């Protein structure tokens, strides 16, 4: 009797905890929509999303330059980070001696825990002047922001990919080597392909962090609401837009910032769905046998 009551309480307790965290998220989303919708509605959805002029004082709220900014920074950062992190993960999972791995792994995981303002500060003090010297201009640019983001998402992608690689059954490796494959052929043809679903998860997490990162990006991206004509031009991300202007925005401008958040929200959902689709497809192709 007592046991059953205990079971009951634990079950309900877990249920309430799970439900309340979902409720809180829903509440936040609702709030964003209530606050942001008036701006989008009065300015027109298409004008808002595809307008290229952001001039709050003149009542112009087009966020397209910032969509381009966010996508540009994010994908450039991924393009820099993915190859590096995969090679690093392969090295750690397959090649490094275990003594080295025991040091590398915690070090890399610590990198993920450094606050973004520290990365931003580093970017501002070191990277921006460096970029200025190397490429001219102000040094505040999409490229600078992407490099900082790259450093920030490396640990996530490395760590998740490395786990994925290490979870590949030893039998596959043995089978490949017994057929006379070299270590590198084994990694390239068997271990890595089998780990791809896990690697994609790592990339999705990295992408999520890159899209959402605000502070470090504000510090180095230049924050100009223009279409960049090259990676060396300054850009403004959607997140930066909210953070920079929220302090003084009133009226429609205030609502338009929440509108920016709505756009960001849909963009993230879209990218997640896309990424999960690839993840799922890969899993199906492999036949569920990769774990």
């Amino acid at each position: 009797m007592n046991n059953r009551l205990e079971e009951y309480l634990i079950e309900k307790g877990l249920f309430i905890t799970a439900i309340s965290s979902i409720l809180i998220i829903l509440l936040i989303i609702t709030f964003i929509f209530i606050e942001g919708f008036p701006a989008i509605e009065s300015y027109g959805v298409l004008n808002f999303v595809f307008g290229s002029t952001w001039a709050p004082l003149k009542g112009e709220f087009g966020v397209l330059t910032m969509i381009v900014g966010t996508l540009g920074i994010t994908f450039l950062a991924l393009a820099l980070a993915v190859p590096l992190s995969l090679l690093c993960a392969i090295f750690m999972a397959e090649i490094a001696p275990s003594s080295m791995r025991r040091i590398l792994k915690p070090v890399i995981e610590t990198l993920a825990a450094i606050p973004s303002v520290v990365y931003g500060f580093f970017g501002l003090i070191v990277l921006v002047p460096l970029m200025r010297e190397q490429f001219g201009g102000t040094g505040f640019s999409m490229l600078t922001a992407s490099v900082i983001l790259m450093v920030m998402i490396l640990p996530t992608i490395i760590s998740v990919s490395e786990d994925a690689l290490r979870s590949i059954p030893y039998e596959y490796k043995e089978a490949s080597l017994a057929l006379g494959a070299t270590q590198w052929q084994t990694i390239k043809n068997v271990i890595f392909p089998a780990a791809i679903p896990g690697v994609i998860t790592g990339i999705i997490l990295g992408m999520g962090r890159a899209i959402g990162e605000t502070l470090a990006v504000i510090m180095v991206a230049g924050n100009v609401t223009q279409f960049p004509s090259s990676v060396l031009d300054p850009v403004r991300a959607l997140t930066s837009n909210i953070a920079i202007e929220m302090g003084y925005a009133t009226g429609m401008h205030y609502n338009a910032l929440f509108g920016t958040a709505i756009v960001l929200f849909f963009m993230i959902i879209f990218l997640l769905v896309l990424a999960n689709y690839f993840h799922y497809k890969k899993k199906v192709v492999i036949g569920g046998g990769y774990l």
Partner: protein
Amino acid sequence: MNRIEVENLNVYFEEAHILKDNNIKIPKNTVTSLIGPSGCGKSTFIRTLNRMNDLISGFRKEGSIFFDGKEIYEPDVDVVELRKKVGMVFQKPNPFPKSILDNVAYGLKVHGINDKDVVEERVEESLKSAALWDEVKDKLDKSAMGLSGGQQQRLCIARTIAIEPEVILMDEPCSALDPISTTKIEDLIHKLKKEYTIVIVTHNMQQATRVSKHTAFFLHGEIVEIGRTDKLFMEPEDKRTEDYITGRFG
């Protein structure tokens, strides 16, 4: 003529002395069974023959293993070449999470055989030799993970013979299989022994008598007795062999 000759082989994992003074000669195109209680070192022994134990840290060996007269642990021996000639089928079927075709073609690819016609022909040949062709010919592009355990094991055999090794090592290839699949694999072994030298570990003594010409009995890392299979089972020389085959200890 002997394909493999093992002389005074001793194997250690760290401090543990696993194989003790093993001597064995394996003639060309015959089947040799290795029997013995669990943990006696049968797997360790055959994994030493294609140097799979090299991957295990703490592995150390003394003595010699000659393959076609050449010591395989000499520094100038190319392990990759050796493993190509000495193929291995594992206890647990371990197909790659790839299509059936890719599984069999894998060994060819890593050895630089990419010509589509050649690959397809070899895949078909190997699957036929492994008595699997009829069951899979219509779904070569499907994942090998969808096959039954017995089919997977035959696929692993096909994958091994696709690269045309000279020796096939089989570590309890039937331990996870039902009697029908087991019969199929035994038939296959009979067929393969014309061209290949086969070393098979088995816990099933009937299987040893059915498939092999020679049998070696391992106990605590020692080869207690080795000889013609019929003789070893009918009139064993060593008391311990007799006790084991009559099931008096285990």
